Every structure is written in C-alpha cells, then in structure tokens.
C-alpha cells in the first residue's frame, strides 16, 4: 500500500514562560492509503498537536511531515490552505458548520475555495448529501437539524472534495451514544469504500472501531499497532486488569 502520511521525528515545542512544553516529542509513524487509524491519548498527550500537523493547520518545530509525498512541514500559509482544501477532509467535534449558510452551501464551501464552477459544485454537493442520507435537508439551515444530522452534513462536507485523508477530531464527542455509533458506522463504511480515515479521540471504546491504534502519551508514541489486541487499549498508568474490564464494558479510560 502507498504511504500517505509520513511523520519523521516530529517535534512541536512551545515556550510557555520559562518552561518548555514538548507537545510532540519525536513522533514517527506512517499511515498507508486506505487505512483506518485512531490516534488516541488523554488530554495533553499531544494528539491535538498531531491532528493539527496532519491537518496542515500547523507545522512542526522539527522533523518532516510528508502528505502523499509532499513536504508539508516547509509550506507557507497559502500552500497549507491549498493542501487543506485539496487533500484533507475535516470532521469536527462541534460540526463547525457556518450557521447562516444552508446545508448545501456549507457542503459546497471546500469546492468554492477550490474554484470549482457553481453548476459542478451544486451537483457534487447533492451527490455527497445523498450519500449521507440528507437530500431533503439541502435548503435547511444547520440550526434546523439535529446534532447527528449536522455531523452527517459535516461528513458530507469533508467528502465533497474527494480528499486523500478524512481527519475526524472526536466526531462523536457531542453526540449521544446511539447517534455516535451511527456516525462511527458511517466512518467504517467510508473506510470499506477505500477512504483513508484518521480518527482522533480520547475514548478507547471509539478508538477500537479503527483497525489500527496509535497511542500517544506526553508527546510520544507509546503504542502503534492493531486495535484488536489487549495492548492497544492499555494505559501504562492503570492496572491492565482494570482496563480490560472497562473496555469490555464499552467504557473509556
């Protein structure tokens, strides 16, 4: 399989007063095309930093990040915007739809910034809206939709530009467990269609839906491997027996 995301010794270091914060401390991994990877960690583990770098919203202090062969770490603002537009599809915890735009207009936004002509934009947006099963809501405003529906719109928006990577940041965080499950099932379906999905979460029970888990702690990778082995959900600070029990009950750590 083709290497899509390559992290080579990524460091992200912030200076907070006198103290140095190492949000990413020598992180290296590779994600191949068609993979479904969950990046897991508690708050402060560096997963948000990882997401920002993968999402081309931020650049590393040190190290190299290649997205589909392009060296993203050295790009300027405009090039990063282009990468975000063409290669990445974002799904956010808070959906992040623009409230005054209709559902279809929200979905069209990435194509708008890509300079796609209006007729093609509309056609493409309708296709993905149909895919997430919300065709009849095209003219509605986001505020007229339920949380689950809004998240499906945001998935449609992530899909519309046919990106190389779908980056989902706590996609179920604001949803009840049933709708959360539906969204995850949808992501799994997208994966089975051949999409590359990177899921960022703090919740083990969600992370196990992916086929591979990268666990971060204190800015370092502490586990990188399949999700269906007990070690995948191990937190070294908590006795393993207790963690296993929690995971089996479907709870997070």
């Amino acid at each position, binding site marked *: 399989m083709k290497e899509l995301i390559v992290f080579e010794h990524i460091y992200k270091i912030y200076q907070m007063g006198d103290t140095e914060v190492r949000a990413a401390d020598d992180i290296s991994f590779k994600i191949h095309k068609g993979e479904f990877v969950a990046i897991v960690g508690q708050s402060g583990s560096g997963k948000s930093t990882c997401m*920002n770098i993968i*999402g081309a*919203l*931020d650049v590393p202090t040190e190290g190299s990040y290649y997205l589909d062969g392009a060296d993203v770490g050295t790009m300027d*603002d*405009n090039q990063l*915007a*282009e990468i*975000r*537009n*063409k290669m990445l599809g*974002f799904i*956010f915890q808070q959906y*992040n*739809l*623009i409230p*005054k735009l209709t559902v279809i207009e929200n979905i069209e*936004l*990435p194509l*708008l*910034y*890509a*300079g796609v002509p209006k007729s093609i934009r509309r056609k493409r947006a309708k296709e993905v809206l149909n895919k997430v099963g919300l065709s009849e809501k095209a003219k509605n405003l986001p505020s007229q939709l339920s949380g689950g529906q809004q998240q499906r719109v945001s998935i449609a*928006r992530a899909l519309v*530009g046919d990106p190389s990577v779908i980056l989902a940041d706590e996609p179920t965080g604001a949803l009840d467990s049933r709708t959360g499950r539906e969204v995850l099932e949808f992501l799994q379906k997208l994966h089975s269609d051949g999409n590359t999905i990177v899921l960022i979460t703090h919740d083990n029970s969600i992370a196990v839906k992916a086929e591979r888990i990268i666990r971060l702690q204190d800015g370092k990778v502490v586990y990188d491997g399949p999700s269906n082995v007990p070690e995948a959900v191990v937190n070294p600070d908590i006795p393993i027996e207790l963690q296993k029990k929690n995971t089996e009950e479907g709870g997070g750590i």
Partner: protein
Amino acid sequence: MGIIQSFILALKSLLNNKMRAFLTMLGIIIGVGSVILIMSLGNGMTKEVEDSFESMGTQSITVTLTGRGSTRSYTEDDMYDFVEENRNVIEAYTPTVNVMATVRPTGWTEDLSTSISGVGEEYLTVKSYNTDQGRFISYIDCYAREKVCYVGAYYNSSEVYNGNAVGSTLKINGDIYKIIGVAEEITDATDEDSSDNFIVIPYTVALRMSRTGTVSSYTLLASSEDTVSQVKQIMLNELYATYEDEDAYSVMALAEVLDTLTSILDTMVVVIACIAGISLLVGGIGIMNIMLVSVTERTREIGIRKALGAKRRDIKLQFVIEAMTTSLIGGIFGIALGVIGADAAGDLLSMSASPTLTSIVVSVGISVGVGVLFGYLPAKKASELNPIDALRYE
C-alpha cells in the same frame, strides 16, 4: 472565490443583520446625502447668479468716476468722443445718474416707491429692453432737458395707468413729467416689487435734479463677449491719461464680476461639501468599528473557512467586499436622500437645485473608497487569524 460570490455573501450577511447594517450605513447615508445636497444647492446658486448676470448682460462694463485725489475731470463730452472713436468695439453706452425722488402717478394720493435713474438715448440697447408702446428718450430730449420719462411695464398695469401710460403724466419731486414710452415686460410677475417698476429720465434732467455737475457712472456695452476685455483696457488707458491716478476711477466688466462671484461660490460650495465630507469619514470609521466587531464575532467562521481551504486573500476579499457593499448601499441611499433633499430645498428656495452627474459619481466613488479603506484593516486582521485558535474560539 469570485468577486460576485463574495458580493452575494456580503449582501446575505448584511440582510442577516438589517438593523445593524442600517445603523452602520447611516454615517455614509448622511455624508453622501449632505455632500450631494450642498453641491446641488451650490450649482443652483451659481446658475441663479449666472442667469441674473446674463440678464444684465455679460457684455456690459461699468465705469465709475470718483475723481478722488485728482483735480481733473472726465466729462460727458469726453466719454461721447471716446465711444465714437471706438464704435468698432463698443455697441452702445449710457450715462447713469441715480436719483432720489418721490413719484406720484396722476390720480394717486400717495407716493409710489420706484427706482428712477437718468440715462442716455442708448440705454435700451445697453439693457436690451424692448419698447412696448411709444418711444424711448432721444438725444434731443437729453440735450433740451425735456421733462419726459420712459417707464416699465408695471405702469401699464391695472394698478396704475391700465394700458394708457403713454401720453399720461406723473409727478417726480412735484414736477410734472410726460410718459413717452413703456417697456415690454421684463418679468412674468409684473408688480410693484418687480423689475418692471422703473422710471428713466434724460440724464441731463437727472443731473440737475441731483445737483451734481458731472456724470459719475457709465455703462458701456461691448460689441461681443470677446471684446469686453479690450474695451475695458482702452477705457482704463483713456481714464489714466486723464486722471493719472488709478484711484480716481474704476472700470468693471460684469463678466469678470461674474467670474469672481462664481469662483467664490464654487470655493464656498467645495469648502462646505468638504465639511459635510467629514461625516463620510466618521461613517467610514463606523464601518471599520462594526467590521472589527464582526471579525471577532465570526472568528470561528473564519477558522472553519480557513480549515476548508480559504486562503488569506479569500478571507481578506470577503471582509473588504462586505465593508464595500455596506458603504456602497449606504452611498446609494445617500444619493436618494441627497436628490430628494435637493429637490425639496430647491422648491423651498425657488431655484433649480439639481444634482450633477459628477457629484453622484464622486459620491459613489468616495463611499466605495471609504468601504475599501476602512474595511481593509479589519479584513487584514481576519485573514491573519491562526486557524487553530480561530477554530477553538467560543
């Protein structure tokens, strides 16, 4: 993202906040409105002045002799000779002697307030008046100091002689004068207060009445507008040769007075319009203020747009166009206000105060310029937001 798309987006965003948009525009509306109103009134005023000067004749030149500081004098005969020598450029001339006198038409028990002056036989040509009935004062009348008078159309009205003015008499300072001619109407409203209420008598008679020896004022009519300055110059030369003192006389061409007046008016209008323009500046600052608020309010939206691939340029364009749209719409309302205001003010002051195309184009240009100028800073601020911080903004 295209400009049209940004424009539609800006319109939508304005419609979402109608009250705020209107209040933001108010400064521009008032600014543009008052600039147009003032410029229209200024134009009307200038036109009014020009018209009234034109009716007096832009070819006429007024000569005033004070004799100050000189023992020499310039007589009517000197002037007569001068005019005859220069007939190629001077079409007509008349002495003017102002008279303070009481006038009482026959059968009246009280005096009529009117303007009387003593003039020469070419006065009608100088003033470009036409005779309705009878004849004008002749050279002989002047020479023989005949007690005759020529009157305005008012004297033929029902209030005075009711069409029988010619041949009738009236009393000036108690002396009886015979009316020999009546002028055609000068204005539509022929009444006591109009310029149709005038009496002219031979200047020789007027001189005797006012107990002054010589004529101190003349009006010359140049053969065309092009020869006005030439006539003025030769007149000045002639007078200098006599008095050898520039303080002893003055020669004024109406066209020059008109030019001076028009330029004073223009300057005045521009100055007042500039003062009104200050409100445009204030309006612009209002737009900038609201745009800054709007950038803060929409920080998250900016973050989303950036995450979805909007470049700095796209964000900047969006906010600049929004500011520009606000001020442009404000400008259009302002033009409407200015045009309606100018129309109303014109009616009120009974003059034509129509806005010129220039003032409208300039106003629209300025209001768009204000939008771009004052929208740029907030737009730049928006475009430079870090997408991560913007996305996290609550």
